[in-house]
C-alpha cells in the first residue's frame, strides 16, 4: 500500500530479531532446566560407603545404603553356593554375558557375580520397576516355587532371582540385579562405590 516500505528489509529484520530473541529465550531456560539436576549436596551423598562384614552370620543378609539406594550384602553358605550352577537352565542370562552384560563390573562377571564367592553384594532393586525384592535365603519349597534354592522374590510383580541376583525365566523382570562397584579394604571390610582398581 505504501511505496516507501522496503518489504525485504522488514522481513529480514523481523526474522533476524525473532531468531536472536528466540536464541536468548532458549538460552535463558537452560539454567532453569539445569537447576533440577542433582545439587552439590545431593552429589555429596554419592560418596563411597564403607561397611564392616563382621556381624553378618552365614546365610544372613545385611541392608545398607549407598547413594540412597538399598545395598544387599549376603554371606552365602557353601551349600547355597553349590546350588547356584544348578539353576542355570531356569535363568534368563546365567553367565551375565547377554542381556545382563552391563549389570555388574567386569570383576564380578562370573558364576557367583562377586569378587569373593562368599560375599554377594547387590543394588537391591528389582530390574522390572525398581521395587525392593525380599530376601528368601532358605532352600525350601515356597508357594511361588516348589524347587526354591534361595534367592530374591519381588512382591510387586512376582519377579524372582537366585542367590547371585540372576533373574529367572517367565517373570516380568528382564535382567539380573545390578552389582555396584566395590572392593575389599581388608578381609572383613568392604567399600561400596569404588572398584578394586579405582581406589585411591
Amino acid at each position: 500500500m505504501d511505496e516507501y516500505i522496503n518489504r525485504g528489509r522488514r522481513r529480514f529484520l523481523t526474522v533476524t530479531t525473532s531468531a536472536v530473541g528466540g536464541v536468548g529465550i532458549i538460552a535463558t531456560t537452560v539454567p532453569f532446566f539445569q537447576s533440577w539436576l542433582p545439587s552439590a549436596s545431593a552429589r555429596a551423598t554419592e560418596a563411597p560407603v564403607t561397611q564392616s562384614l563382621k556381624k553378618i552370620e552365614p546365610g544372613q543378609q545385611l541392608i545398607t545404603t549407598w547413594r540412597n539406594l538399598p545395598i544387599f550384602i549376603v554371606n552365602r553358605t557353601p551349600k547355597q553356593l553349590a546350588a547356584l550352577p544348578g539353576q542355570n537352565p531356569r535363568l534368563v542370562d546365567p553367565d551375565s554375558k547377554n542381556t545382563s552384560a552391563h549389570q555388574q563390573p567386569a570383576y564380578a562377571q562370573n558364576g557367583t557375580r562377586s569378587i569373593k564367592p562368599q560375599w554377594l553384594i547387590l543394588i537391591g532393586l528389582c530390574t522390572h520397576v525398581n521395587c525392593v525384592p525380599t530376601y528368601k535365603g532358605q532352600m525350601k519349597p515356597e508357594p511361588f516355587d516348589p524347587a526354591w534354592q534361595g534367592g530374591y522374590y519381588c512382591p510387586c510383580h512376582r519377579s524372582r532371582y537366585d542367590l547371585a541376583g540372576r533373574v529367572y525365566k517367565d517373570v516380568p523382570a528382564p535382567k539380573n540385579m545390578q552389582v555396584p562397584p566395590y572392593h575389599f579394604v581388608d578381609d572383613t571390610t568392604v567399600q561400596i562405590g569404588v572398584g578394586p582398581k579405582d581406589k585411591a
Partner: protein
Amino acid sequence: MIALSLALMLNSALSLSKTTAVLPTTGRHPLEQTALRHGARMFFHYCVACHSLKYMRYSRIARDLKLSRQQVMTHLNLTGGRFNDPVISSMPAALATKAFGKVPPDLSLEIRAKGAVWAYNYLNTFYLDPKSPIGWNNTVLPNTTMPFPLWELQGEQVAVVGKDGHQVQKLEIKQLGTMKPAQYRQATRDLIDFLTYVSDPAALQRRRYGIWVMLFLVLFTFLAWLLKKEYWKDIH
C-alpha cells in the same frame, strides 16, 4: 538511576569513614586465582582452628581454585573432613565457649555481612593492651575477644594514645614479625580475598557469564531498534 548511583557513592563514603585504614587497591582483579590460593592457605593455617566455613565444601574450593583433590585434602583440610564435606572447625563449641566466652563466628558470610574493608582493617589494627584479658585489643572492634592469631607475621603493634589517655591516635609496630609491613598487608588482603570469595562463590562464574549476556543483549537491542525504526516509518 542517578539517585541510586549517588546513594551508592554515599554508601561507600559511609563505610570508609568508619574505619581507620583503606584496603590497598592494586590494579589486579579482586578475585584473582593466585591470591585466592594464598588466602586459602592463610585461612587453613591460621583461622580454621576456631572458625568454620559451614556453607563451603572442600570440593567446591578445589574446583573453583583449580586445586587437585589431593592438594586440598593434604594441604588445606587438616580437620579430617571428607572431600564433599563443608569446612567445619575442629574446635568443640563447649571448649570455645570456655576459652573465649562465645563460639567463634562462622566466617562463610562474614564478608557479605561486614564488608572486606572492615575485615581487612580488623586484621591490621590489633595492638598490645596490658589491660585486656587476652593481651590484645583492636581499634576496629574494641575489646575484641579474639586473640591475635597473626602476630607472628605482623609483629607487635602498640597504640599511641591521645592526651586523655584513652583515644587511640595511631598504631606503631614495636617489634617486627616475620613479615615486612607491606608483605603483611598483602597477606591479609589475600586472606580477605579468599573470604570474599567464600561469602559469594558464584561471583567467579558470574562475571564470566555476565560479559556474554551483556554482549548478546547489545546485539538484540540493536536489532530490535532497527526493526522498530523500520516499522515506525509508517507513522507520520
